[in-house]
């Protein structure tokens, strides 16, 4: 299962960034696929990106709500929100574990041998503030004289955008380098900070900041695919927590907001069959592989 997940993560990363002609065009992909949002965090200004970033798209629509109303278009983000919420309703936070390129990167960097640190539990709630403020409220409220807002999360925070678009685009288009100022320095500093944190902390961006993960997490308890904890079999050995890429204490309850349904706890950690999953309420029997 673990090898399968790695294979799917690699494939999803390649498919999300499959525009191989960018070294020749020195530009981003501009085909029709860009109208579809990918399920993971992948910057649409990455020169290789083949799809749209859901969080960037959502902010853009919110930032342009007033002009859109003035022109009678009434774009309020139902398409992007519909896509994200359908995904969330089906599988909850599962895309974070299986198809998000930035999540994949964090897991790989965390493999670097070092002393590992755990974050205080309250920090996992910070991401909801990032979602509410930087993705929804600030783009909606802070507007210029023409009614246009800005994409606050992309502009001031997103390290995925810096890594996938900020660095490569400045290499591909030298004229952009002249425009790089304190904003660019700020974004590089945030990226550098998270790259360091990834070594010591399990998926720090996903757990503390990611607004996409925050949206999906709202559906973990009601999604069609759900994890199941069997307290009668659980001996509280905490092996699920030790092996979890998100630091979830599964023994305290299934379908917590940070559970990304990677299934590692079920397949590799738990030796007592205390973890399973169900689809639409129907239990699925899976024989553990690593026992």
């Amino acid at each position, binding site marked *: 299962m673990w090898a399968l997940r790695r294979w799917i993560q690699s494939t999803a990363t390649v498919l999300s960034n499959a525009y191989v002609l960018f070294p020749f065009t020195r530009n981003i992909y501009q085909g029709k696929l860009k109208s579809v949002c990918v399920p993971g965090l992948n910057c649409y200004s990455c020169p290789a990106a083949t799809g749209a970033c859901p969080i960037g798209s959502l902010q853009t629509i919110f930032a342009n709500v007033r002009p859109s109303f003035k022109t009678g278009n009434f774009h309020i983000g139902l398409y992007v929100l*519909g*896509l994200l919420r359908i995904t969330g309703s089906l599988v909850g936070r599962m895309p974070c574990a299986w198809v998000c390129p930035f999540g994949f990167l964090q897991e790989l960097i965390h493999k670097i041998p070092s002393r590992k640190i755990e974050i205080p539990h309250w920090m996992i709630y910070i991401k909801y503030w990032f979602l509410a403020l930087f993705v929804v409220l600030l783009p909606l409220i802070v507007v210029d004289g023409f009614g246009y807002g800005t994409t606050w999360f992309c502009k001031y925070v997103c390290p995925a955008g810096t890594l996938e678009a900020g660095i490569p685009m400045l290499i591909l288009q030298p004229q952009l380098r002249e425009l790089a100022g304190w904003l660019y320095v700020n974004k590089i500093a945030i990226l550098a900070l998270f790259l360091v944190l990834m070594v010591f902390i399990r998926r720090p961006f996903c757990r503390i900041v990611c607004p996409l993960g925050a949206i999906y997490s709202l559906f973990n308890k009601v999604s069609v695919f759900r994890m199941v904890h069997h307290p009668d079999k659980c001996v509280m050995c905490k092996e699920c927590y030790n092996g979890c890429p998100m630091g979830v204490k599964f023994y305290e309850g299934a379908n917590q907001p940070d559970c990304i349904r990677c299934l590692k706890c079920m397949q590799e950690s738990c030796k007592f069959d205390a973890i399973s999953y169900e689809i639409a309420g129907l239990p699925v029997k899976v024989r553990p592989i690593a026992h």
Partner: protein
Amino acid sequence: MDQVKRKSGFLLLLLFLIFLVIGINAGEVATVWEKAVSICLACIGIG
């Protein structure tokens, strides 16, 4: 309680499918595409 959660999951799914269809009919797909095919200076960190 579990049955309520199960039912609410399916009801949410149906609701969001309606959201999606309304969004597509309103032309939001084109808006997403227009943004996604332009270099996002905010994402890069220069504007």
